[in-house]
């Protein structure tokens, strides 16, 4: 097991957002977390990345205590987040956004080949390399957000609702690329509102409700589960 979260508690002042969450992601897995609005999914990945502090609990990645590290060192350890709402640097160009993804790496010779790899996945970014990022469409910004994360050479990619606000065909395209990224050996923790899409993409899944994991299992099992069907699949 490479990522292990054990009994994680996070609060915003008086609001308890996570109440004892435990989960794990094995090396080379795609795991998804589904759950309705406000369940605490974003809170979970934020505390994984060290953006918000945790009350208690333990987060380890390959034996490393992530809870004790500042965000930039968590990123350097290979755990990289594509945040909800993308957080593209609107004031920078596409190229600058991508270059920032490679900040931690010293060898600049590798940056060019990584750029080429990102352009392989997202040829559209290459055409727009000099463009200010705030002129990109929503879909292109999502591509940039994923591309920027790839520039960090992630081992575990945390994706917080990559389909948010995208047209269905673009969602399909993005998920195809996520699978290709996975095939290159990157583990993925996927947060997704579209439970059907999420469970078809991932091998395992967790269902989260008001700060707790209420169900977990193989995707196939969850797809058949009557509670999941009723609450998240709308059947």
């Amino acid at each position, binding site marked *: 097991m490479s990522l292990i979260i054990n009994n994680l508690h996070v609060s915003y002042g008086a609001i308890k957002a996570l109440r004892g969450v435990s989960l794990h992601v094995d090396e080379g897995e795609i795991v998804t977390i589904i759950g309705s609005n406000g369940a605490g999914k974003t809170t979970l990945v934020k505390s994984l990345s060290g953006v918000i502090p945790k009350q208690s609990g333990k987060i380890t990645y390959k034996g490393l205590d992530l809870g004790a590290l500042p965000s930039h060192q968590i990123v350097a350890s290979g755990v990289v987040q594509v945040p909800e709402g993308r957080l593209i*640097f609107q*004031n920078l160009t596409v190229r600058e956004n991508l270059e920032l993804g490679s*900040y931690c790496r010293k060898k600049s010779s590798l940056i060019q080949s990584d750029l080429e790899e990102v352009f392989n996945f997202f040829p559209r970014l290459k055409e727009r390399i000099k463009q200010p990022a705030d002129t990109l469409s929503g879909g292109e910004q999502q591509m940039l957000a994923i591309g920027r994360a790839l520039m960090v050479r992630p081992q575990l990619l945390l994706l917080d609702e990559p389909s948010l606000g995208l047209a269905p065909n673009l969602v399909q395209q993005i998920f195809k690329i996520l699978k290709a990224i996975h095939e290159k050996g990157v583990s993925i923790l996927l947060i997704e509102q579209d439970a059907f899409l999420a469970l078809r993409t991932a091998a395992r899944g967790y269902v989260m409700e008001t700060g707790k994991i209420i169900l977990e299992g193989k995707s196939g099992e969850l797809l058949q589960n009557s509670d999941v069907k009723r609450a998240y699949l709308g059947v």
Partner: protein
Amino acid sequence: MSSFLQQLINGVAWGSIYALIALGYTMVYGIIRLINFAHGDVYMIGAMSGYFLARWLSLQNGPASFFIILPLSMLVCALLGFVIEKLAYKPVRHAPRITALITAIGVSLFLEYGGQLLFGADPKFFPTLIPTNPFINLGGVFVSNIQFLIIITSLVLMIILHWIVMRTKMGLCMRAVSFSHTASALVGIPVDRVISFTFILGSALAGAAGVLVGLSNPKVEPLMGIMPGIKAFVAAVLGGIGSIPGALVGSLILGISETMVTAYISSTYRDALAFIILILILLFKPTGLLGGRQQTKV
């Protein structure tokens, strides 16, 4: 006409000094949204360290001494800026903004009155490293050697700054952090280090301003930073706080209008001008001249 041109040159020289200070305000604001009220006092420390360095190193008067004192004073201020951020601002970074603002006022008072305690309240006289003389004659309009040095030194420092911000990795990180601390942390940028670097850069520029002022207005004392500090702040707001080109434009406008008011109306109104400009800009264009929402901020 020639008197007008003469005033213009004087104004540009003053404006360059303001610009060196205003850049620090605007960069720090861009990166942590804090009005660093202690920044004018860092400029005072720049002038003071110039004075003491010249004495301790028993430097001969001459341009060579200037080129020794300038980088050393910048270094002292850079260090001071680094320490101020670490000790005073970093602990309150996630507190409400008013807390940081009050902390900044506290640091400012500490430097002003700590300075009086340490250096004495009496004015010191900056050594005449370079005696003033007319240096360039543009058909009856003179640029003195000191003005020339002020303008050229500021220009060179600003070009270096521009290069750092636009061409280096650290500069790219500064621009990223100014946009979002969270997004920056998530791509692996050590945000704290970038903030430290910004204080170091801004404070070094203020230190340079202190030494340059010492050359033209040799009276230096612990409260000398208050007025120029406020005015450089106004210049930064005028140009659009957070915008580097804005700080330059705002400073030149302020420097030139101040000398014009002094020359053609009365020197009594000189200091009031900055406040009039501040009120007008806050009323009519709070984002400043170049500080649109789309402006690249640092």
